[in-house]
């Protein structure tokens, strides 16, 4: 298996290139979600550009659609499209690489962007799998701010009602949203209890930017029968550089020249450290 820890940092560099070139993007959440997406796409899911038409392959919905830059980087690394095309055109006039996932692009199932849709759609996909007695799994990633949307809880109810153990949701718990700390905006600190009370198997991932911990959690989720699983992945918003880490104003900031230099330096160092193991 390739070094996914190093890959996550390399993909962060792609994201920075996109955002600098496109002069837009949700950088903080891209950085926090990167290991989650990397582990899902490079280790957990049976998915590739070659098997997209296979009804038995696994499915993924990017519910926190604003972290599309991280998603593009991962899909490009999986071979769905060329990262050079993404970096060159992201967010620019007429580009197919717009600021939220769009299913006209290869590899993307559903258009997202409006929050609180990914989980209910994933419930439908998982339900279809149960109806057809297929053993594919469905994954979706939500932001922690996103779970204030009421539709998330409609989906949560239905997932446990229908015992969708083929569904695994992830909450990118970076504790920051556009207006500040999630606990100040709309508190979620009892997130474990909330999901548990909705009938879900809840796995807390102490460090949601640690590939090993994520792998263990996803693997454990597969063993749980009769209920869906949610991973509460405790991540760091802006993960990868001290310039951005844990700073709410980096929700969708574009780095200036000075910040960019430091970010690139930090990412290169961490990538190298990950390579060395």
């Amino acid at each position, binding site marked *: 298996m390739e070094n996914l820890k190093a890959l996550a940092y390399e993909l962060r560099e792609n994201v920075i290139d996109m955002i600098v070139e496109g002069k837009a993007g949700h950088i903080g959440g891209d950085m926090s979600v990167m290991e989650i997406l990397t582990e899902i796409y490079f280790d957990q899911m049976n998915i590739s550009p070659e098997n997209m038409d296979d009804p038995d392959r696994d*499915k993924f919905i990017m519910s926190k659609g604003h972290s599309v830059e991280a998603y593009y980087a991962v899909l490009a690394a999986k071979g769905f499209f060329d990262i050079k095309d993404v970096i060159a055109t992201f967010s620019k006039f007429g580009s197919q690489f717009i600021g939220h996932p769009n299913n006209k692009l290869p590899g993307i199932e*559903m258009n997202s962007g409006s929050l609180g849709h990914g989980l209910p759609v994933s*419930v439908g996909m998982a339900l279809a799998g149960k*109806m057809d007695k297929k053993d594919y799994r469905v994954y979706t990633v939500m932001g922690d701010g996103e779970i204030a949307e009421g539709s998330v809880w409609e989906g949560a109810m239905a997932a446990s009602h229908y015992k969708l153990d083929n569904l695994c949701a992830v909450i990118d718990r970076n504790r920051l949203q556009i207006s500040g700390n999630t606990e100040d905006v709309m508190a979620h600190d009892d997130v474990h209890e909330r999901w548990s009370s909705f009938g879900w198997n809840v796995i807390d991932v102490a460090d949601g930017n640690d590939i090993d911990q994520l792998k263990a959690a996803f693997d454990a989720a597969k063993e749980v029968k009769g209920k869906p699983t949610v991973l509460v992945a405790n991540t760091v918003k802006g993960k990868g550089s001290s310039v951005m880490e844990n700073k709410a104003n980096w929700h969708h900031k574009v780095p200036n020249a000075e910040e960019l230099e430091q970010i690139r330096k930090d990412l290169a160092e961490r990538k190298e450290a990950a390579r060395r193991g």
Partner: protein
Amino acid sequence: MAKIANKQVICDILVEAGKKDKDIVALCSDSRGSASFTGFANELPEQFVETGIAEQNLVSISAGLAKCGKKPYAASPACFLSTRSYEQCKVDVAYSNTNVKLVGISGGVSYGALGMSHHSAQDIAAMSAVPNMRVYIPSDHFQTECLMKELIKDEKPAYIRVGRNAVDDVYEEGNVPFEMDKATVICEGCDVAIIACGEMVKPAKDAAELLKAEGISAGVVDMYCVKPLDTEAIVKAASGAKAVVTVEEHAPFGGLGSMVSQVVGSECPKKVINIALPDAPVITGTSKEVFDHYKMTAEGIAEKAKEALK
């Protein structure tokens, strides 16, 4: 013979189709009774999904099912389906282009006495404004059957609105002219063209008879396909008449009347009078009482037609 409600026809057709195609799935939001979908739920329980009172979830789950090869029909009161879950209809169905058929039951003022919360007088405007979404409002059970048989064959999003109660037939057994996405011309006329949809087609047809008795030649067009609008039929009917009257069970803005006016204004300008519900919470009553009150009747339509010709 007892009259058959359009929603019952939808269920009957889906049950028959569902027996042959296990991918046909019906979903309800605690609305199987009001949708007349109990028959489907009982006959094909493995193909029925209950979402509880959660219309947003109803639509999103349908989209997820469609993405995995299912052919979902989501039935819920039109008032909730078109406004409570509007964003899910827009994003998960229309924008993502999933094969979901949204069945808005008890549309318009079917729930007359229940108040504005239960009326869907905005659904034509709302749904028509969304790219990729088609909007169909069939008139009677014969037309509903024809429409459903066509919709089952395609794989695109659509919103279908039907009323709660059985309505008088517009067509008759063995004589149901129907072409998908083409309006049905019930009769041609050289004085006034009446263009209607849904439950307003029958009074429009009756109005033409009343007008005929007074020596006024009225054409009637059943525009069940509100989107894609059959503009050709509008231009043809309007060009051959001196004035146009539209009739719909909808708010006065953004519905069939607005659309017809746009077409007539640009293609063959002449007077267009729109008959619709008022821009206000409608008066309490059964739908018949409400229609009588607002003169959305054969007599009322005939009066407006005569005014249009003055």
